[in-house]
């Protein structure tokens, strides 16, 4: 054991985390209070979603604690009704919008990022700075002109129209993230592949893409959450047609119905949340990286 470690051991009890001066109780207490405050809104909604429609209207969700083990307290009926009333269709629409809107920009951005990192061409630096700069152009700047073009060509309300729009809006961040990552790969491996006679396409496919999986994953998760949770782009480019409406639109419409939809809202809200929550907690570590660089998007 080195001296520093010995000192650590002397100051801190073994296995104790940092900051021994603060006594434990207030720390646990304040963390607990904040965490509880943060959890109550969604927990309350979740409990509501599992209650009888009549009880949702009649009393607050906290009343379940009186009869937790009463069989009549819990039901999946709200989920069934919500899925029947358009939410299963909206779920399929959300998938149909989201998957291509994630995959297309990743492919296009990966090629561009490779060129920015490992190829020489006139205007490379200027183009890249422009691409990075475009990250801060608000989505709102694009809505009116694109809607005009889409309307003129009669493609508004179609899935391909919204795929390409999401691809365009997602590209600056994707190119930025991927280029930074690909540029930091060791040049020696790419040079030696060159010397072995590999062309750019082969190096990209066989070396750079496999090595870039972490950053590809983190962008994919970021873009997935972004597109799945998007309301604005869907509202403008898919319009009010319930046949193609995605989950966020359907939920917003339902919430506009007020007291009449009270029993369906909690279950419907959780239908919209289930996939992002699974993706989010399953792949959290990839997500944090994308988050740091990415939240200026859109």
């Amino acid at each position: 054991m080195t001296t520093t470690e010995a000192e650590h051991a002397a100051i801190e009890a073994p296995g104790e985390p940092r900051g021994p001066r603060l006594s434990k109780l207030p720390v646990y207490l304040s963390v607990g209070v904040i965490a509880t405050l943060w959890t109550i809104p969604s927990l309350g909604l979740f409990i509501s979603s599992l209650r009888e429609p009549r009880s949702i209207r009649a009393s607050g969700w906290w009343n379940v604690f009186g009869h937790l083990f009463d069989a009549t307290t819990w039901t999946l009926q709200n989920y069934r009704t919500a899925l029947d009333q358009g939410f299963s269709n909206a779920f399929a629409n959300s998938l149909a919008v989201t998957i291509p809107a994630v995959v297309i920009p990743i492919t296009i951005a990966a090629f561009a990022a490779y060129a920015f990192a490992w190829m020489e061409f006139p205007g490379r630096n200027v183009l890249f700075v422009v691409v990075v700069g475009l990250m801060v152009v608000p989505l709102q700047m694009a809505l009116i002109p694109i809607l005009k073009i889409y309307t003129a060509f009669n493609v508004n309300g179609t899935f391909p129209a919204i795929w390409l729009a999401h691809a365009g809006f997602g590209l600056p961040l994707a190119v930025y993230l991927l280029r930074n990552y690909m540029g930091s790969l060791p040049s020696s491996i790419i040079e030696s592949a060159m010397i072995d006679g590999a062309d750019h396409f082969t190096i990209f496919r066989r070396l750079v893409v496999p090595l870039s999986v972490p950053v590809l994953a983190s962008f994919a998760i970021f873009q997935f959450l972004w597109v799945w949770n998007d309301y604005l782009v869907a509202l403008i480019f898919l319009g009010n047609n319930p046949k193609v409406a995605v989950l966020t639109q359907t939920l917003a419409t339902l919430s506009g119905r007020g007291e009449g939809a009270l029993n369906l809202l909690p279950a419907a809200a959780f239908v919209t949340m289930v996939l992002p929550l699974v993706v989010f907690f399953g792949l959290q570590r990839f997500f944090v990286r994308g988050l740091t660089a990415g939240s200026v998007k859109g």
Partner: protein
Amino acid sequence: MTTPPVLDDHRGPMPRPPEELETTNGFTVWLLRFGSAFVVPAVLVVFFFAFSFLKDEGVNKLLQVGVALVVGILGVWALFWGMDQLVSLLPRRAAAAVRPFAFVGPAIVLLGFYLVYPAVNTAILSLQDARSKSFIGFDNYVTVFTKSQYLISIRNSILWVLVVPFLAVAVGLGFATLADRLSKHAESAAKSLIFLPMAISFVGASVVWGFVYYFRAPGYGAQIGVINAIWDGLGGQPVDWLRLQPWNNLFLMVILVWLQTGFSMVILSSAIKSVPVELQEAARIDGATEWQSFRRVVFPVIFSTVMVVWTTVVITVWKTFDIVFVMTGGREGTQVVAETMVREFFTNRNNGIGAALAVVLFLAVVPVLVLNVRRFREEEAMR
């Protein structure tokens, strides 16, 4: 900006035949470069829109998703591959000059169409009337900066930008600092709870909080919103929180704080953990209190991260439209710029005012854009 080692085809191991040097001139190469940039997007657009079954909403969703997936993954990839093969048919030197554009071009073309052209067009539309028929100078901007309904939007947006990032960073920082002292399992469990709202859409969050703020006039049934129930329990009259001006703005801001705190907490937590333990211990040995050691040792080290998080949340807040749109529709004095923009252009069909508000949104983030590019340059210089 440092340039990574350049790997042109002509630096490959095979010495290139000298006669090929002269086979291309600059103009042809530029023509080919532009051509190669447009091929992939053009084929993509033609494919998507020529096949009516992708447009037909009656068609089986699974089939659509399947086709979309095949096109999205294999199709786009195959397009790039085909382009690369085409470029390879060129003389060696010309191929080396054109190939980068076949790689980078599709991204640039899409960005040009979906961001650059619309930005310019929106700026022009903002100088035209509601139906984009004739130029009216800066009248839309005069309207936006003089009429009270728009001034309220701007005032509210500024309040959002002042309040939400401050609270999200303050709570996130405080929570990260405290959670750092818990045992590993307790820390990650507590952080997950704060982090969870990050996965929820703004519309979903609006529904979640709609139930928290739920209001029923007395005599119309029990209060099922948790806040009114507590208020009721304390003997108060139930309050319609979302109509209680001007405080309803604050209640809407709370929703975004709830959503954004997880982001700031996670980033700041990893920054705090990167502060060397020795620094804090040295301060402790010198007799610093916990607060002093945080204030004078930890905070200065993580300050640049705090700024990054703060600007990031500022931009998010400034552009947020969903929460106000869903919760109040901008009524009861809660309108903000991003939401008013959508309402003017989409609901009221006023392109001029909508475009002017979009330009206002954009101009306000330009300083951040400049900072971002500068930060990027500095990072590049350090690499």
